[in-house]
């Protein structure tokens, strides 16, 4: 039973960032901008916020510092996503190319800055944010050990973002307009919606959430950020596609991939998996292979936003 609890807790650490980043990607793509830059934005968000955390951990401590760092991650993610937004919305650039530029820029920027200002590539920080047991809730049988022990506030924030995202996308005027811009921007424009502004909003939300996701991913699993998020932004993109651009399904997809990733990271701690004698490299491959398999069976009927990837051209109206 304790192995099971351990697996669920670990799965949270890997699934919640995927959930957050994929939801971010959802806002961007539903507004009509393909955001392949999620990986790069995660790196920038994680790097700047951890650099902030590292510099402040002498003055501020505890959960407050984590919350402040999360705000920094959100802000820096939005800032870097502006590059992508400007290129793909104003300059009508190829969105995949502009996203690739951000992805190439991010790790180089993180490593360069760290080496120029800290002297080494790794950004180290003290992890003082683990909550061993949530008072009261952790004593609930089964649910307590599953969700309220060995946890981080980021887990609950992740679920809150899910609920808010669902509400914003389906129950607000903003959400309806955003979706209209991703499906048929010319019609949206004709109805008086400012397509450029909605698309900026979509990309900025994705930047905020991807930046946050970078921090949320890094804090529980390491204490030395190394200028990379190990393909997580790309996995989030796959989660988004597997989740068919819908919040509920994205939740399911994020946990599916998070579990795969957990197995890959934690198999040495699970005796019966270790005894199978499968080489570690194959465990590491599994999430990526599963992504391809899942996409093979789900891509024929794709619910992708119809105008995603196309620059808005008012002349086509």
């Amino acid at each position, binding site marked *: 039973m304790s192995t099971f609890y351990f697996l669920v807790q670990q799965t949270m650490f890997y699934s919640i960032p995927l959930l957050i980043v994929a939801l971010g990607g959802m806002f961007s793509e539903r507004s009509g901008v393909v955001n392949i830059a999620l990986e790069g934005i995660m790196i920038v968000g994680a790097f700047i916020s951890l650099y902030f955390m590292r510099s402040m951990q002498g003055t501020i401590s505890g959960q407050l510092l984590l919350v402040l760092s999360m705000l920094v991650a959100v802000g820096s993610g939005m800032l870097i996503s502006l590059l992508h937004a400007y290129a793909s919305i104003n300059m009508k650039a190829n969105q995949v190319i502009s996203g690739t*530029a951000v992805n190439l820029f991010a790790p180089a920027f993180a490593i*360069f800055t760290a080496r120029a200002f800290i002297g080494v590539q790794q950004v180290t920080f003290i992890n003082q944010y683990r909550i061993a047991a949530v008072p009261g809730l952790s004593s609930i049988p089964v649910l307590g050990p599953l969700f309220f022990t060995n946890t981080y506030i980021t887990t609950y924030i992740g679920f809150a973002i899910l609920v808010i995202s669902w509400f914003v996308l389906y129950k607000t005027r903003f959400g309806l307009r955003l979706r209209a811009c991703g499906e048929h921007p010319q019609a949206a424009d004709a109805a008086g919606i400012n397509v450029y502004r909605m698309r900026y909003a979509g990309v900025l939300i994705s930047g905020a959430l991807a930046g946050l996701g970078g921090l949320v991913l890094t804090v529980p699993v390491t204490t030395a950020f190394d200028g990379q998020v190990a393909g997580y932004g790309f996995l989030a*993109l796959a989660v988004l596609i597997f989740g068919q651009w819908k919040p509920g399904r994205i939740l399911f997809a994020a946990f599916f991939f998070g579990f795969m990733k957990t197995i890959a990271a934690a198999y040495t701690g699970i005796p019966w998996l270790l005894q199978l004698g499968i080489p570690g490299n194959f465990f590491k491959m599994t999430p990526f292979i599963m992504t391809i398999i899942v996409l093979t069976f789900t891509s024929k009927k794709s619910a992708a936003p119809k105008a995603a990837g196309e620059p808005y051209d008012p002349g086509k109206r």
Partner: protein
Amino acid sequence: MNIKLNRLIKSRGFASISASLGAILIGLLFGYIILLISNPSEAGFGFMTILRGGFNQGVRGVGNGLYMSAPIILTGLSVGFAFKTGLFNIGASGQFILGAFAAIYVGVKWTFLPDGTVWIAALLAGAIAGALWAGIVGVLKAYRNVNEVITSIMLNYIGMYLVNYMVVQTVFNPTRNESITPSRAILPKLGLNQIFTNSSVNIGIILAIVFAIIIYIILEKTTFGFELKAVGYNRDASRYAGINEKRNIILSMMIAGALSGLGGGILYLSGAGKHIEIVDMLAPEGFNGIPVALLASSHPIGIIFSGLFIGHLNMGGFYMQRYDFVPEVIDIMIAIIIYFSAFALAFKAFLEKVSKKKGGKSA
């Protein structure tokens, strides 16, 4: 004379070259600013080191620059060829490392081949491995409509872990945690090392140029190339015109993969101390192919020059380290160059629109 000049300015080639040069200038400028911020007193010196590239070390440096350029010209061709046929091959990294492994494996294990032919078999193996790896992407795209960008990215990671596993199982040097040297499959130098003394330059750069020309001929002068491009423009229209669009998508990816795989073979069969290291890091040469292709607007001949340029910058970054600069500034510059070359596409489309309008009026 004036008319000729006018025509030159209005031509598509001129527009793309001037847009690329603009992007390069902006990238260099940003690089200089970054150096100024991080180390004001040495910035000018560091920047000159980048600009000098291989020339920092005379003929040896230039030779090494050519050696480093050959694989990225090939991955650039791989990305560019896919672009021309409507596919974004972000998977060059995986194809490259699989090709490298196959080449090393054949170079080490196929001892039955006579001397002097091993390198040919090894390079062929590299190309085939790259083609098969990219073929997966093509098949899934053609038959299951799976987005090639996502599959390629996933296959980059799968390829990296797979190669790490296979190197350890087959051609491993445990004391150095890397692949062993395929000493019987070292590429011939063709006397180039007489010109560029003490450098690692070999037949690779010549092969890269030859393949660029071959790809140019395929794309521009053959029916096959025309069909590939037609599928890229409009899949449904091509099918309606009687083109087997599924087969063409798969072939496009396989040719792109073969080029990347060949690049992997060329880099690792040099005998210049390059080995596959067992680390969880994607091969950067594959990603360098993207700026190389974009800078040249995917034109095969242009890719030769943009590959030489990016290789030159990387050499500059290598020499810059001696003066305590962080070489990642080169990657930042390259990222900025790509970012602005994405603008360049828009700029070019704009120029074309303008010149079309004018042309229409005068005619």
